């Protein structure tokens, strides 16, 4: 038959049956559970209980400590960090974003770019340099990170390192952006790469993390629509609420200036001005701040400046107000709907954007020739010019400057304004600030007159004046702060640098300087008549007075209580006076209503009083600058070498420190070696840490909790795949702060992050113990007493260890009794006699001392980290020490011990009973001869053997009979026992049943009471 004729039977897929079912479930991705009923509720009382417990547990798991969002209504710019390996397209992305938001070209990038992105939102976009220090610093302040990934190359280690840094220092939002997608020619390959990279990205962040694809370039920027989409995603990202950032004020310096006196030598300490927005918390003058890579400083002065990139709503509101003042237009009330061109402000000092460049000295405005209309050049006759140009020229050429002209009374620049001549305005002059008042008035005029853009310095000056004037005006009205704090309230206003330095604070703080309190009565009478108005009691002038909170005499205490005074007091302060019972009841009801809600806030029970207070107190606090302020922070004595290293491209961060965070001490951290780091970490091998704002090198000591938290045991190396504790010397930080460890941050082939963890506790001292075994040898033994040598080297040491427990290797326990001589020998007693060959061991725990090594990382080229032990060995040519005793794994092979034979004296031997006698003669071995020799028994022997044989037989028979009898008896007994047992079982069953019924009833009752059914 030819096989070609008949077609082969095709394979038929199974449509039913076990195999088909399996395939189906596999396709759906469902895994069959082994025991699907294991975690369900099957009914019954246990089940109910379990369900209740389960739901409660789930609820409890959901409970989180409430986070308080401190960001004000107008938040500071949202910080967007653009990170990626070199050549991935970071600058291009920023340029595209700037073009999208501000419709301007970013020609050259240098430092952060702040721009308005929406009605409520401003962005600060900053590019992350490749240096690890910059990556660390930026991770600490980023609100959103754009992770750029070169799709044509794949993921690079930096990306993963940066993600890890972010995770430790508080996770901000992360958006991945794939670039260089145009290098894929084939669509299928592109799709594959996108998919695989997406999944890898998800594995690192979370499933569903957003990954953008930027397909290619157009006019040197990314495609408009793709950037628009990205911008939409940026717009909806929320700032993360991270405890460190919520509790520490910080500033990302958008601009910095070296304001040192230029006559000083270059190496002298610098005065540094940093400009930026306040984030995280209130920034107060005089607090300590940390400048990563530079050091700790006390803020010498802060000044609030006008916002260079004001939020659109504010500018709009101002514009509307101005229009309303002018009366040209009816002020619109509705909110800002869209961003107008004028709202799209960009503040990018250091970058070339549009036409303005700012460097540390000056600001340059690039005006294209075709727009330079009012600049006089080689031009035509003035008469040929248009009229407007002629007028402006005339103004340019006028001799008097504006303020001179403005002294003439009738100058008007803007309609509806009048210019007051200085000098004779009516204002209540405060004696100490009279001079400044005039200046302030001048400032006012200038304010009113001038509407044009002025140079930045001018703006600053003007603001300073305005602020100080405001502060003065503010301070004048109440007088009360002045009375308490002395007349120097302007110290805390907008003016900068006037707060006394700690060194000479003596004058500012001491109560000498407040003469108001010396003879308070006179002053009071002058300031405001009436006894009630005095804000202070008693005399404060006494330097060595009695330090007591209780006042020896209260005012009004010695006055007589006549009827009228009594009545007045009763009416004012007692419920019995003029307080009707109806009101009281009402009050009580109110209280009851409120009580369950907020019991602690008893003070707020009277809503009227609260409202009243709120009305009377405007929330203006003179100390510190709130979140969102644009400020200039001045730092003094900044090392010149560090300032010389500051670059525009490098992020400069000013991190505020809380009280006690610059104190040095030991910090205990729970740390885990990073699984991608190739090596274990070694105790007291230098480690670079990034904790809080700081980066420093320190010597860690690893340890593990032993015996249920009783003891911290020293570890030579970190555990391989588990957490252990690290203790190191450094500035104290609050618990729950993230810690990142590096061995070095040189660019290497492997993952640089070598450990991550969290701070557990900071304290001046910790105890980490390690085992110490002191070994000695006996040199004289008397029964249970032995004399031991070589364990200690002096009698002093022995005395220190008196009554310590010791032990031989074989396990005979003993105690150190007394020193013997001065060479460290001692007498010890044991529970049994020890041998001369025994080793005596004293097991103890000693505290591991911590090395106080703290080496802050400075961002200067000369800075070098302390070398690691391996590096030192390599440099010195020292081999790794190899002590055979310390080797693991290899079992020690000990020679078999040979003991001397026991010798029993002959006299003793003779007196012993046979059983206790030494069996000295050994059992005779059968020799070959004896084995071979035939045994020929004599007649008598035969007879004896025969007799013994018969006796055995008789005994056997007797035993058999006895066995039979006992078996019989046992059987009978068994029957009887079974009968009794059955009776007993039945009874027990009955009793059990009754008990269960009773329990069930009880349980039903309980369930009813708990309303579980």
């Amino acid at each position: 038959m030819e096989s070609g004729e008949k077609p082969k039977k095709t394979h038929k897929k199974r449509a039913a049956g076990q195999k088909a079912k399996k395939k189906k479930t596999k396709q759906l991705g469902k895994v069959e559970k082994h025991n699907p009923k294991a975690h369900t509720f099957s009914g019954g009382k246990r089940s109910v209980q379990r369900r209740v417990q389960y739901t409660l547990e789930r609820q409890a798991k959901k409970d989180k400590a409430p986070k308080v969002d401190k960001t004000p209504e107008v938040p500071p710019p949202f910080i967007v960090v653009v990170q990626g390996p070199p050549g991935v397209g970071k600058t291009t992305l920023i340029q595209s974003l700037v073009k999208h938001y501000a419709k301007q070209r970013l020609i050259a990038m240098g430092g952060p770019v702040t721009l308005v992105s929406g009605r409520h939102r401003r962005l600060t976009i900053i590019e992350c340099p490749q240096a690890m220090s910059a990556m660390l610093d930026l991770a600490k302040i980023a609100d959103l990170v754009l992770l750029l990934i070169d799709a044509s190359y794949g993921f690079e280690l930096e990306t993963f390192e940066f993600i890890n840094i972010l995770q430790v220092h508080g996770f901000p939002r992360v958006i991945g952006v794939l670039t260089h997608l145009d290098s894929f020619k084939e669509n299928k390959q592109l799709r594959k790469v996108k998919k695989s990279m997406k999944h890898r990205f998800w594995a690192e962040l979370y499933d569903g993390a957003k990954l953008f694809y930027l397909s290619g370039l157009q006019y040197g920027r990314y495609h408009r629509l793709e950037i628009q989409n990205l911008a939409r995603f940026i717009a909806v990202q929320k700032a993360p609420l991270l405890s460190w950032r919520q509790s520490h004020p910080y500033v990302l310096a958008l601009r910095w200036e070296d304001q040192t006196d230029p006559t000083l030598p270059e190496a002298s300490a610098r005065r540094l001005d940093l400009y930026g927005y306040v984030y995280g918390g209130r920034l107060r003058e005089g607090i300590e701040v940390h400048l990563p890579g530079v050091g700790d400083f006390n803020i010498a002065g802060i000044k609030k400046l006008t916002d260079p990139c004001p939020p659109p709503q504010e500018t709009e509101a101002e514009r509307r107000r101005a229009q309303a003042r002018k009366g040209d237009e009816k002020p619109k009330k509705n909110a800002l709907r869209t961003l107008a061109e004028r709202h799209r402000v960009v503040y990018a000092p250091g970058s070339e954007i549009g036409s303005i460049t700012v460097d540390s000295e000056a600001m340059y405005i690039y005006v294209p020739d075709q727009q330079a209309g009012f600049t006089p050049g080689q031009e035509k006759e003035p008469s040929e010019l248009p009229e407007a140009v002629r007028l402006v020229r005339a103004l340019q050429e006028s001799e008097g400057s504006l303020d001179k002209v403005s002294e003439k009374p009738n100058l008007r620049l803007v309609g509806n304004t009048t210019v007051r001549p200085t000098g004779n305005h009516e204002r209540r002059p405060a004696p100490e600030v009279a001079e400044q008042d005039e200046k302030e008035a001048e400032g006012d005029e200038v304010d009113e007159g001038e509407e044009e853009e002025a140079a930045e310095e001018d703006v600053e000056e003007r603001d300073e004046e305005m602020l100080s004037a405001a502060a003065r005006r503010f301070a004048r009205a109440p007088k009360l702060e002045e009375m308490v704090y002395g007349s120097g309230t302007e110290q805390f206003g907008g003016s900068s640098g006037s707060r006394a330095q700690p060194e000479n604070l003596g004058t500012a703080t001491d109560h000498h300087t407040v003469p108001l309190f010396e003879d308070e009565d006179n002053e009071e009478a002058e300031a405001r008549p009436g006894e009630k108005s005095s804000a202070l009691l008693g005399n404060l002038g006494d330097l060595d007075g009695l330090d007591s909170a209780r006042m020896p005499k209260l005012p009004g205490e010695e006055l007589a209580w006549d009827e009228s005074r009594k009545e007045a007091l009763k009416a004012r302060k007692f419920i019995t006076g003029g307080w009707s019972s109806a009101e009281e009841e009402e009050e009580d009801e109110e209280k009851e209503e409120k009580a369950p809600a907020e019991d602690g806030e008893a003070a707020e029970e009277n809503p009227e009083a609260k409202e009243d207070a709120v009305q009377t107190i405007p929330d203006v606090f003179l100390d510190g600058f709130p979140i969102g302020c644009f400020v200039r922070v001045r730092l003094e004595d900044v090392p010149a070498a560090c300032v010389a290293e500051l670059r525009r491209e490098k992020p400069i961060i000013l991190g505020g420190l809380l009280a006690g965070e610059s104190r040095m001490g030991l910090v205990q951290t729970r740390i885990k070696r990073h699984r991608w780091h190739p090596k274990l970490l070694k105790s007291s091998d230098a480690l670079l840490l990034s904790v809080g704002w700081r980066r420093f090198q320190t010597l860690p000591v690893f340890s593990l909790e032993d015996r249920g938290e009783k003891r911290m045991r020293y570890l030579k190396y970190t555990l391989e795949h588990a957490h252990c504790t690290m203790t190191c010397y450094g500035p104290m930080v609050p618990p729950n702060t993230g810690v990142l460890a590096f061995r070095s941050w040189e660019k290497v082939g492997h993952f640089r992050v070598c450990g991550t963890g969290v701070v557990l506790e900071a304290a001046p001292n910790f105890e980490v113990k390690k085992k110490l075994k002191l070994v000695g040898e006996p040199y004289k033994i008397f029964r249970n007493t032995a004399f031991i040598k070589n364990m200690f080297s002096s009698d002093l040491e022995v005395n220190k260890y008196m009554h310590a427990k010791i032990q031989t290797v074989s396990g005979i326990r003993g105690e150190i009794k007394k020193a013997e001589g001065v060479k460290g020998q001692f007498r010890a007693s044991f529970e049994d006699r020890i041998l001369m060959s025994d080793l005596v061991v004293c097991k103890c725990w000693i505290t591991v001392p911590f090395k106080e090594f703290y080496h802050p990382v400075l961002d200067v080229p000369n800075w070098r980290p302390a070398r690691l032990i391996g590096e030192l060995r390599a440099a010195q040519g020292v081999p790794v020490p190899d002590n055979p005793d310390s080797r693991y794994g290899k079992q020690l092979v000990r020679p078999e011990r040979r003991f001397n034979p026991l010798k029993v004296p002959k006299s003793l031997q003779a007196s012993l009973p046979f059983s206790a006698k030494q069996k000295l003669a050994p059992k005779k071995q059968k020799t070959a001869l004896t084995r071979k020799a035939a045994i020929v028994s004599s007649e008598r022997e035969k007879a004896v053997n025969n007799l013994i044989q018969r006796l055995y037989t008789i005994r056997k028979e007797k035993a058999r009979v006895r066995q039979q009898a006992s078996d019989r008896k046992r059987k009978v007994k068994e029957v009887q026992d079974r009968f009794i047992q059955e009776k007993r079982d039945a009874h027990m069953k009955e009793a059990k049943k009754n008990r269960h019924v009773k329990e069930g009833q009880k349980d039903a009752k309980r369930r009813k009471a708990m309303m579980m059914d």
Partner: protein
Amino acid sequence: MKGSGNALRYSGSNFLRQRLVLSTISGRPVVISDIRPKDEEPGLRDYEASFVRLLDKLCDGSDISIDETGTTLKYRPGQIIGGSGLVHTCPPSRCLTYFLEGLLLLAPLAKQPLTVRLKGVTNSAEDVSCDTFRTATLPLLAKFGIEEQLSFKILKRGAPPLGGGEVIFSCPIVKAIQPIELLNEGKVKRVRGVAYTTKVSPQFAARMVDAARGVLNDFLPDVWVYTDHCKGEACGNSPGYGISLVAETIARSLKSADACASISEEEEMSPESVGTHAAQRLLAEIDLDGVVDTAHQSLVLYFLSLGEETKPSRLRLSRLSPSAAQMLRHIRDFLGVVFQIREDHGDSGSVVLSCIGAGITNTARRTF
């Protein structure tokens, strides 16, 4: 890391406790010079030295040095440890509340909850008495969220001059201090108090109570004063008697006053005059406006200044006592917090102080 360049400098021995406490809490070193330089006994008094020693017991890692003349004290603060089992014998020159007031400011931010046993004088004329500390000072702390495990027990009473009293004080720890508003004073609804007698006739207590009630019942019927007569072991070494009164308003603010007789002095006060004196002092305290009384102003201001930054704290006070005013200045020096002080227009006698706290958190505590 920082030298003493960061230190704050003061002169004079007054308000030593405030300076040391604020230095400890803010971590800034302090140098106090010119401590009684022209006195017959220059330098620290025994109670001040004892307070410094107590602070040293409470803290770890602090550095205290006093120069040869004894007139300059340098203090570099450490970490507040707390813990149980602390025992301190205080000199009889000051009342135990002198020490307790200082402890109270630090203990909530310690590493471990504090339990301390203090021995010395429990009631004296120049300080707030221990009874007032229990009935008026501790309830104030509840407003800041320091409530559970806060306890105070007078085991033995000790009157000056020999003392011999003993108290146990325990205080929990907190993560941070909540910002609060204390604006509503409210009217007085009841007066409670304790009259104690030790080593004198128990009749004295009844006489003091009678006298105090005689004054206060003109204003209010709800006056109840407990009597506490110490016997045997609980007596201390000297005879004495006194009374402590606390007025509670419907807004649950407390005002306290106390008085005690010192037997050894020449002009001995009769129990009646002690009672009357305390009652009148209480009336004077009530007469002054404010949510807290003069003795507790500085305490409340201190806790307000430590509060979290999330919202402003407000407090209505009467005129400031010297220690409160000095506390405000010290707070400005150490923490940089400046209170805004406004005269309250609704109630002419009082001022409203408000501030945004420094956001001090308990960095010493251990996490897991």
